């Protein structure tokens, strides 16, 4: 039997990969990065790197960067709430998760965006739990009905209660890490268990060009020490906050990510780091940051290729759209992005459900995107030799009336070879019309309603819930927040 080929797409030549890395290393050595966080600067200084305390600039030697690349793990494993289900983040494994930290939600009835509330966060968490092809959840929405000061820990508090999947999240304030770490440890049954079986990924976004804010550098340090994987989210905007050429922007992207990687390795050698990002092809007409632009996807695929070349797990914001509704644009951009991300073998692909430049989530889109991700998985599963011969035995002696519908071969293989969408329309025109002649978003809405009505929420054990609540209330109290919204599954 011939081995199945895993379809894979690489945009860069080996020579260009090496040139980008070489220039990035030179940038770090000559220009360096701005590091606002004093603890991170101390780490650099103690490691013998050149730190200028007058302007917070840190120059990092080539040897230090390469040493850090060498000590960061090539593969990270995440575990679900139970700790039984393992997800390998590395190699060409692909895991989709909803785009994180949207502040708005598309109100289906009104077909307009509105601010997200706690009840929306509960709903999106429950729906994510039900989506077969979204392996991870994320703290997808920021609730507007709680004070901003506790918005980071609060979204994790909700997500951990209503979905058992590993969660992609992050801090909005330095103090957010403490309670968020406690919550994860509470679910896992202690900090040592959490270190052995990570439940979350924390995103850390450098500010382009080449800056690490106090918050993000602290998150890298805290995560490294706690054994929580950090996802480096460089987000240059071509021609605005990074060079306008795709190759030029890659140099900055790689330099930013590598400097974050070094911070993590200095905080704890061997700490898990994911080579990721959310860059965009800046729109020179509108001044916006289109995530659905083909050039944005090209940047993503290219830096992921470089991350793989360096032997690091990878991430990208792909499979999302800048459309404001679940329209044709939403489908085009999401479908193209998800397929390309899968072909590029990007390990964590964030974006499902997202619209409007990462600012808006849609429950309907989340379900549509789950189906898109299913198509992407089928695509990269490739074309296999199932039998030997392939078809000779089926075609021999075939007469004019022959068909394959009743062939045992068909029954044996049709489900392994073909997938069956739940939302895409494959009806005849008359059948489609008989069911109301509705567009896909309407069917997705009905499905969301049905899941929320009929599938009981997969809630965390009551004892853990009480512990999560205690941590949340204590965090709220310390920040002068006396009441939290009622949470209903």
């Amino acid at each position, binding site marked *: 039997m011939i081995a199945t080929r895993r379809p894979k797409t690489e945009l860069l030549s080996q020579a260009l990969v090496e040139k980008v890395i070489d220039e990035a290393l030179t940038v770090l050595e000559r220009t360096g990065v701005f590091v606002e966080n004093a603890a991170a600067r101390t780490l650099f200084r103690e490691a013998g790197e050149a730190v200028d305390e007058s302007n917070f600039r840190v120059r990092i030697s080539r040897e230090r960067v390469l040493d850090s690349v060498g000590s960061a793990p090539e593969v990270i494993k995440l575990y679900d709430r139970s700790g039984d289900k393992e997800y390998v983040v590395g190699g060409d494994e692909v895991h989709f998760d909803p785009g994180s930290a949207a*502040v708005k939600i598309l109100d289906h009835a009104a077909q307009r965006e509105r601010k997200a509330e706690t009840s929306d966060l509960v709903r999106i968490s429950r729906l994510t739990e039900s989506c077969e092809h979204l392996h991870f959840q994320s703290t997808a929405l920021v609730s507007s009905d709680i004070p901003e000061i506790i918005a980071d820990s609060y979204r994790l508090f909700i997500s951990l209660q209503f979905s058992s999947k590993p969660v992609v999240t992050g801090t909005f304030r330095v103090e957010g890490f403490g309670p968020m770490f406690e919550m994860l440890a509470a679910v896992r049954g202690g900090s040592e268990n959490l270190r052995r079986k990570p439940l979350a990924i924390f995103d850390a976004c450098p500010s382009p060009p080449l800056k690490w804010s106090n918050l993000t550098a602290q998150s890298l340090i805290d995560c490294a020490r706690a054994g929580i994987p950090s996802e480096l989210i460089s987000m240059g905007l071509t*021609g605005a906050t990074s060079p306008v050429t795709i190759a030029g922007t890659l140099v900055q992207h790689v330099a930013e990510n590598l400097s974050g990687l070094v911070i993590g390795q200095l905080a704890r050698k061997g700490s898990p780091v994911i080579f990721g990002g959310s860059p965009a092809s800046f729109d020179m007409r509108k001044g916006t940051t289109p995530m659905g632009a083909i050039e944005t996807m090209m940047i993503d695929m290219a830096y992921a290729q470089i991350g793989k070349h360096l032997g690091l797990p990878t991430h990208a914001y792909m499979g999302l759209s800048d459309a404001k509704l679940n329209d044709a644009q939403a489908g085009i951009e999401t479908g193209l992005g998800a397929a390309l991300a899968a072909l590029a073998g990007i390990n964590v692909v964030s974006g499902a459900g997202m619209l409007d430049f990462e600012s808006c989530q849609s429950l309907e889109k989340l379900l549509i995107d789950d189906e898109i991700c299913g198509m992407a998985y089928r695509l990269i599963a490739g074309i296999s030799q199932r039998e030997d011969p392939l078809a000779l035995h089926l075609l021999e002696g075939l007469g004019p009336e022959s068909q394959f519908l009743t062939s045992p071969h068909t029954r044996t293989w049709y489900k392994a070879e073909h997938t069956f969408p739940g939302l895409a329309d494959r009806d005849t025109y008359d059948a489609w019309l008989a069911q109301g002649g509705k567009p896909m978003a309407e069917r997705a809405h009905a499905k969301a309603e049905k899941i929320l009505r009929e599938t009981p929420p997969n809630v965390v054990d009551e004892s853990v819930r009480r512990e999560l609540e205690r941590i949340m209330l204590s965090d709220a109290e310390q920040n002068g927040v006396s009441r939290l919204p009622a949470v209903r599954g």
Partner: protein
Amino acid sequence: MNNPNEILALMAEAVVEGNRDKAASLAARAVADRLDLHLVIENGYAAGIQKVGELWEKGEYFLPELMASAEAMKAAMTLLRPALESSRGEPSSEGKAVIGTIEGDIHDIGKNLVSSMLSANGFDVIDLGADVKLGIFIDRAVEAKVDFICLSALLTTTMLNQRRLIAMLHDRGLRGRFKVLVGGAPVTRQWAADIGADGYGENAMAAVKAAKEIMARGAKP
């Protein structure tokens, strides 16, 4: 090139091309040759920036062209304004503004665009940079006797500081002295109305328009 119309056309052209050096050297010549600087600005440089606005509206110009033209305009105005003020003893601006990205927010692309376009359109702009404390906006506004306070915010969280600044102006009894313009990715016309701002621009050109309209309506508030 003794024909004054010829040099005015070259000035306009320098702005339209976004040629900083050409715009500045023509301005220096205008000062040295004692040309009528009001004419130079109005029929030369300002005509150029108006043409740039038209090209933008038509979709021919993109942000890089817009910024290059604004920079060329600024380079010329930096030379012309002091000369004009010393000869006439009067300020020559469309209005005066402090601008900055608000406290807690370090994003400044949008703010830089608005800042450049306001200067290019004849406003006197004091750019305070990014992550500007609310008190600093107000102190500098009072100190420099500005007409506008322009507040940028890229994050929905920092956007709330726009509301706080307006409340602070009320508290200090200064609300009537300044017009407040707000902008930034998450900012909408509705938000501007909700917080009682005087104007809003969804992009840099719209911000200039809003500022001009406010000045035309009431001159000094």
